[in-house]
């Protein structure tokens, strides 16, 4: 599987250096399950973090701190084995939020063919899953801030192209689009927005307010 649409260096760098908030980290961490290219980028960026740590101005440590830590070493047994992961089709980073199987996610219906599942909000940034049956469309909308959509299963298209599993679509306030789910497997996306969507028509904007789109 070749990923065509990546999160972009700025998101990867925020994730690698620990600056991104939890919803954005969830998006990037899940994308990495699909994308070997971005995994390599994050590893390089972490190496830059290590190099910067070497050059941070050291802060004085309490004279007794080393002794305090040494006295605790024998109580800290080595972590030998890493836990085995259980089976399931949900990427690991997402499992703490929705479990191991997409088929067991509890959805909230939004419109014909469309359902969503809010996951978390931090500050103004929200993460949720969106499920679209083939042919289902989200009304034309733009965004007050940025939105990132990661395809998990199935695919969708809009005015800008086709998005398949692992692809991340980044949209900014100047983009109006109308995503439509393609034929084939149901399309499940992880959507992260840092501001509510802005709908072009009145009715969807009311639906949007009710359902928190």
């Amino acid at each position: 599987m070749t990923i065509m649409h990546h999160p972009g260096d700025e998101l990867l760098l925020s994730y690698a250096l620990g600056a991104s908030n939890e919803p954005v980290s969830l998006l990037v961490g899940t994308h990495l399950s699909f994308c070997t290219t971005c995994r390599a980028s994050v590893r390089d960026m972490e190496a830059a973090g290590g190099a910067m740590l070497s050059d941070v101005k050291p802060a004085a440590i309490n004279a007794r701190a080393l002794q305090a830590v040494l006295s605790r070493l024998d109580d800290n047994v080595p972590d030998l084995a890493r836990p085995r992961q259980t089976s399931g089709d949900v990427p690991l980073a997402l499992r703490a939020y929705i479990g191991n199987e997409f088929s067991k996610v509890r959805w909230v219906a939004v419109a014909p063919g469309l359902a969503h599942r809010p996951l978390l909000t931090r500050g103004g940034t929200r993460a949720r899953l969106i499920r679209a049956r083939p042919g289902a469309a989200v009304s034309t909308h733009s965004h007050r801030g940025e939105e990132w959509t990661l395809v998990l299963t199935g695919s969708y298209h809009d005015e800008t192209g086709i998005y398949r599993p692992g692809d991340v679509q980044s949209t900014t306030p100047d983009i109006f689009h109308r995503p439509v789910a393609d034929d084939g497997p149901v399309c499940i996306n992880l959507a992260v927005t840092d501001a509510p969507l802005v709908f072009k028509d009145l009715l969807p904007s009311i639906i949007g307010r009710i359902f928190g789109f």
Partner: protein
Amino acid sequence: MERPLQDAARLNDLVRAVGQNADKAAFKELFDHFAPRVKGYLMRLGAGSAVAEDLAQDVMLTLWRKAVQFDPAKASASTWVFTIARNLRIDAIRKERRPQFDADDPTLAPSSERSSDENLDWAKAEDRLREALVMLPREQAQVVELSFLADKPHSAIAAELGLPLGTVKSRIRLAMAQLRGALGERS
């Protein structure tokens, strides 16, 4: 209390001595090198001195416990310690989870291309990276350093610098191209 910068290869050997032999003398040397830097890093990110010191101690205890998992083929000791400090800070100070990519993920896309990175000497690469960071044009170095020490999204960094978000993004892209170039000079 400025401590001399340790050679990256020596730090790798010390972590391995801890992992393989529970070598406390090696641990002491790692503590002297890393604890003041981790504390300095946490304080630059806004932690008070006492909190930063407690967390730096936790980072060192985690190093002790996980040294057996340290793999110098994947990262230098400094990078590995940086990721430990980063994750503990998110957990303890921001009180957030950090959804992690994990190499054991059963849904993982298999790596199709065998990358030449498997032969990369990360300890040497770190020296090249540090040089490349110093060589970055000032405006690029600034956004990379803020990504490291500001704990905010780039939209907030852009607002603070009075720059369009697109400008911040393109500076990051240019900086990363430079840093990748430095890593690309395989030894």
